[in-house]
């Protein structure tokens, strides 16, 4: 392989290394352990969403509902921790254990994903439309749950026995924040599933040529439903993480997160047409976005300029990608 080819192929990594070097030169705080932990923790949120999104985009779809699912999942967990389940006829309130609250919230996210998948695969609704609908429905449900209010103080009550919820977002494991572990585990599993299982191969095949996949005996509908369920799972997990991190659930959490996730996937070289791309690429994409955001904040660049930089980086990255496809 020629040197220039290597450069082009590894451009995302090179870009990541380059911005890292630039920021560490310009800001003495950038490369400190404290800043790195904050940075990776922020990246984890977007990366987990983007991992789910990668499966959807590889299959030729798109999921616009992830931000709203995150918001709704956070609110469900928040309601279960702070309000419990009220049995008004018996006058009893049941406070579930923190783990049960998390499982319920994540299950709700997967259910919305399954519904998206059903709309797309059974009723042939365009993924953009189906998940746009889910975006509004999930956000509306999140607001309805509390009448628009925030559920504060999710640390739980030791006397009831529902503490521990905040650990998943704010806690640490072997010195690293839990969300970073979750991102690493999620990425490892997703890489394995996408490259080494029949399901992963079938996702690529459906994105590449759905009709050919169908005629080869791939259960296209089932695979699509699962893909949206994975995305719903990741989105709900993110919602729980954020609520746990803040110790409060807010119904507006996750607005425009879907766009950040799509940006990471696209930056990572995954084709919006489906069939081409990788989880590793998505991870790098999420880190490029995260490093840019963090570094620009440290340098005191205004938030408005940050948006302009982010937008330009995405477009330039995709242009480079097109060049590589052509050569």
């Amino acid at each position, binding site marked *: 392989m020629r040197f220039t080819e290597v450069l082009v192929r590894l451009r995302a990594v090179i870009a990541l290394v380059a911005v890292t070097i630039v920021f560490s030169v310009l800001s003495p705080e950038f490369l400190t352990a404290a800043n790195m932990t904050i940075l990776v923790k922020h990246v984890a949120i977007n990366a987990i969403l983007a991992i789910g999104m990668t499966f959807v985009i590889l299959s030729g779809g798109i999921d616009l509902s992830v931000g709203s699912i995150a918001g709704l999942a956070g609110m469900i967990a928040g309601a279960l921790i702070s309000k419990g389940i009220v049995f008004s006829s018996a006058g009893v309130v049941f406070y579930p254990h923190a783990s049960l609250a998390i499982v319920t919230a994540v299950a709700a996210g997967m259910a919305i994903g399954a519904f998206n998948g059903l709309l797309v695969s059974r009723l042939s609704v365009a993924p953009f439309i189906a998940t746009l609908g889910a975006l509004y429905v999930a956000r509306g449900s999140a607001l309805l749950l509390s009448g628009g209010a925030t559920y504060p103080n999710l640390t739980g009550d030791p006397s009831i026995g529902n503490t521990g919820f905040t650990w998943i977002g704010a806690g640490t494991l072997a010195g690293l924040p839990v969300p970073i572990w979750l991102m690493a585990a999620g990425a490892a599993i997703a890489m394995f599933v996408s490259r080494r299982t029949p399901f992963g191969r079938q996702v690529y*095949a459906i994105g590449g040529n759905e009709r050919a996949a169908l005629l080869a005996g791939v259960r296209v509908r089932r695979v699509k439903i699962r893909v949206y369920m994975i995305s719903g799972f990741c989105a709900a997990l993110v919602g729980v993480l954020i609520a746990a991190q803040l110790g409060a659930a807010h119904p507006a959490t996750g607005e425009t997160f879907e766009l950040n996730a799509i940006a990471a996937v696209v930056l990572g070289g995954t084709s919006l047409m489906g069939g081409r791309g990788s989880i590793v690429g998505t991870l790098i994409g999420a880190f490029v976005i995260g490093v840019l955001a963090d570094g620009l904040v440290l340098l005191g660049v205004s938030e408005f300029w940050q948006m302009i930089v982010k937008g330009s980086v995405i477009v330039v990255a995709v242009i480079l990608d097109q060049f590589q496809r052509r050569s």
Partner: protein
Amino acid sequence: MSSPDAWTYDAHDITKVYPGTTALRGVSFSTRPGEVHALIGENGAGKSTLVKILAGIESPTSGRLELDGRQVTLTSVRDASAAGIGVIHQELQLFPDLSVAENLFIGRECLTRWGSVDMGAQESQARGALGRLGQDVDPRTLVRRLPLGLRQIVEIARALVAEVRVLMMDEPTSALTAGEVDALFRVIRDLASHRVAIVYISHHLHELLAIANRITVLRDGAVVGAAAAADVDVPWIVERMTGRPPHATRELPTAAAGSVVLEARDLSLPPRSGRTALDRVSLQLRRGEVCGIYGLLGAGRTELFETLLGVHDDAEGHVSIDKRSLDRSDVTARVEAGIAMVPEDRQAAGLVQSMSVQENLTLAHLAALAPRGVLDTAAERQASERVAATLRVRAPSLDSPVVVLSGGNQQKVVIGRGIMTRPRVLLLDDPTRGVDVAAKAEILATMRTLAAGGMAVAFASSDLAEVVEAADRVLVMSRGRVRAEYSGGDVTEEKLTAAASSDPAQRDAVH
């Protein structure tokens, strides 16, 4: 339609090098007004590359193009089209959601003096062009509503309205019925009489000899034969294409047909736009037998195979394998039960273009290659190598993108995917469409070998000679029904033709 002046468009000493392979080595090729120049060669011989260079889609590594004796550099299709050079590609390049007229004038719309598209002018010119092709199609029809044969005609009409001087046709008849081929030949002769130069690529050698004035044969990127069509015959061409003398027509060992493997009773498919309705089709496929399904385009061959595979939810009737009913089984379950299908349209329904050769080969076999849910990469490689060797797939590597392969080798990959699952029944829908003579012979021989190994093989075709040569038993279809069945010595071209055209409304059904 033409400039009356004498003019020429020649390629001199063209060499084209791609990374890893030299597609053309010092090829010279000339066109003359009013002449039909046939370009022949096996898949991968360099025909398509030469056409792409002549059409300005690719630039030669060395060599020159001369228009009227002056060197030209074509950097785009637009350049070529401005110089009067047009191409009809093998894979249709139409916009399904635009009307016929809009397709004909895409990129060179007729405008009113307000700058809007002059629909009326376009439609009347479109009607004229289609009329010259002997087709009475409403130019306002959406292309997606036309059957494949008519779409090909639309593609040709598009070149007609562009007022070309040189028209290159890459396999223009591969989807056409005999009547449509005749109409096309009339048009080609008409164009030639108007001093248009035609470059004609086809694998149907008899067809070439009927229409061409001059013949150039390519092999491995070099010109290995050039002659006036009147001076040569089919064996001459085959010898040059393959580099060896043609072998005698293959003797078919008549297989002793075994037990019934697949049985279908009263299959019906309600009519819907873009497909032929099936009307109570029944058939049996037997172990060890090659069954031909002969019928013209629109006869319902594809619909029959798709229904056997379980693609259509609204189909009625019964399908069973080894007496086990598949009526409630979806496509996946039927593939698992032992049915494999090689679809007609390789690009749209066969290949996953974004994947490698190996990934395409193993797509139907993934569950078996992942016994505990994890793909066994060694087993995957082994299975791919075995099938690729059996079918003699010529590919740089199993990890190459499948799109770099020639048409015949791509087709072998799709067939390989089908046989990797070791199916009981193999359905091949027009398996030799758009593949060269050598690959065609290999595909027909493969069907025979698979049948001899105990598989029930069925193939659909509109190529009479091929059906007669390769099938033990033939079902003749037209308008969604089985019209006749012949076996053994009764399989003759005369009988099949008679049965296929027994229904005079057949042609109308296509329109």
